[in-house]
């Protein structure tokens, strides 16, 4: 099969560019430590009340390390806060481990300006870790359609200065 000379160069260039993109992805994992959500376990949605998700909310594990347990349901994030816009407060520099699931339908869990982007599915436990360095209020947004109240499904993480 005949391949034109210029086309051959093009194919090589395509290979090199895609190879470079691939190397960048490997570097993001190996050098910069970016992690994707991976299976950590299943949970029967009917038994959430008898599980580690019975009391959602923030627990402090150590100096600037916290665990946040979240139960998403139509149409709110239960983060253990009773405010109209559920909010958790942590100091800047905190490492937060988020463990979350959904009670009913597919929800999303996205934190503005941070690398937190994970699906919450009934039956599955999602887990991500993230560090909050910059003070400010960052919304937790449900980014998967979950019914008529979807757009109101929002919570917030308030990151405060100092300790």
């Amino acid at each position, binding site marked *: 099969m005949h391949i034109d000379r210029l*086309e051959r160069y093009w194919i090589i260039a395509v290979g090199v560019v895609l190879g470079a993109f691939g190397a960048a992805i490997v570097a993001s994992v190996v050098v910069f430590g970016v992690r994707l959500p991976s*299976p950590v376990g299943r949970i029967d*949605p*009917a038994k959430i009340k008898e599980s580690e998700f019975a009391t959602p909310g923030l627990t402090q594990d150590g100096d600037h390390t916290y665990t946040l347990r979240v139960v998403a349901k139509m149409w709110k994030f239960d983060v253990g806060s009773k405010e109209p816009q559920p909010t958790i407060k942590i100091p800047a520099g905190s490492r937060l481990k988020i463990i979350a699931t959904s009670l009913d339908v597919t929800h*999303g869990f*996205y934190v503005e300006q941070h690398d937190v982007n994970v699906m919450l599915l009934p039956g599955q436990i*999602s887990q991500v870790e993230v560090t909050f360095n910059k003070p400010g209020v960052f*919304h937790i947004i449900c980014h998967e359609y979950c019914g008529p109240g*979807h*757009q109101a499904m929002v919570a917030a993480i308030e990151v405060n200065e100092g300790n």
Partner: protein
Amino acid sequence: MQHTKALTITPELTFPKVGFLTSEQWIVGSHVLTGLMALLIGIFLGPFQVFRRAPALKWAIPVFSYYYQALTVHGVMNALFFTTFFIVGFSYFTVMRSLKRNMWSTKLVWAAYVLMLVGLLLVVYALVTNQANVLYTFYPSLIAHPAFYLGLVLLVVGTWLVTANLFLTYMLWRKENPQEHLPLAVFATLTNFVLWCVASFGVAIEVLFMLLPLSLGLISHTDPQAGRALFWFFGHPLVYFWLLPAYTSWYAMLPKQANSRIFSDPLARVAFILLMIFSIPVGVHHMFTDPGVSAVMKGIQTVFTFVVAIPSLLTAFNVGAMLERAGRNRGAKGPFDWMWKQDWRNPVIAAQISAMILFITGGISGIMNASLTLNIALHNTSWIPAHFHQTLGGAVTLTFMGICYWLIPMIRGRGLYSANVALWQVHTWSIGMMIFGYTYGAAGLLGVPRRTDLGAAPYINELAVPYLNASVIGGVLLLISGILFFVNIFGTLFFSKAPLTEEAPIDTYVESKSPLWMEKWGLWLSIVAILCVIAWVPVFLEVFDFTNGFQTPGYNPNGGIYKP
């Protein structure tokens, strides 16, 4: 079913008229026009989503005032029904004209059409009665009215009959012409229906064994993670099912229209074979943020996704070289002036080249989406609709509109209503899509979610406000463009007085150096099967809970537990 006897189609533009149901005009016309009716419902809801989401306007959507109903109608009509009907009609036309024979069975053509049409009507019923607000991805555990799923089943079964008919037509032709080269357009059409059939098994299993029984009340639980895996087994090849007919037009028809010739026929076929094979083991790149799929499988499917980018980049060169030749024929001398020395006054050409331009950003943003870790910044933000409105809304739809500008006149036996209106339509569409892509892409990077009724949201992302407001300009242009398109379609159907001038851009013979082994369909299917075992079997083993089965009850998309 006996096959209808081969009908000689003269190279002139006359259509065979052997009873209207057997005529090419009716076969092609009914499919294409049904597709355009679906588009007519779906297309105009698009700009109003943008108006609704812009903080400066927050307008309610007319008629379908409920945002998520409008969004579901927009997605289902445009992406599932317009595309499928149009592609089937276009594929019949391509195959019958190129092979100079009728379809294997005209009865089967109409049987498939009726199934698909009933499917469309059932889905429309479920949508307009507000019982299927599940968006076009219909993820469980949201459960729609059974008519919605039944309609989808009929659509898919219809396309299986179409595939059988296309292959039987090809096999008859091959038996009579054992040594001849298959015209590229037919080769491409066959690869497209192979990938569609393989892909559709995922969604067929999801709908038949999970969603429809739950919707009917035969079972009581489902598994959202397993449903997503089955859906995306289908969902990514689906986008290639939309794209390949556009490629078919660029490779096999645009050379005739632009007075050029194809640069490399063998490499075009290689591209179609690669697309057919590697569009299957890549769907997990839609599930990078899913909790139930391991990072290893996500990595493996990223590699395959990069492989499936190769045939599109081959296409960029091959089609680019063909266009360079067209430009040189029109007097281009310098290294780059062939790009604008094209026949921009011809809406058929202008639409296709504009579609390619949109596909540059569409393709690049697609590679970004597929980049495993980078996807965390993009997934489910408004970046994603920005991306697929450059690909599906741009490259595919604008090419299909360009095809309509010669195909509808041919079906009607009249000239196009207005070439000027068509040109305005093409340019407003391109610029509108670019503005939509830029503003929604930027807003997505700032954290604006997709598929969300921002007009009713209690929070606001101040950084993204200027972009969301600017997207209104894109919406207005696209609204104008949509109106201009249908003015021309209805104008051509009912009011055009101009005589038909354009010829069908169809190759009936090929001077090709392509080896005949490229038609080893069994070999390609075996490779697809092996790749499925490598890329998908481990995923399905992960996502299905083999000890506990399904544990999540169905939910009504309007709230509460689903009751059949």
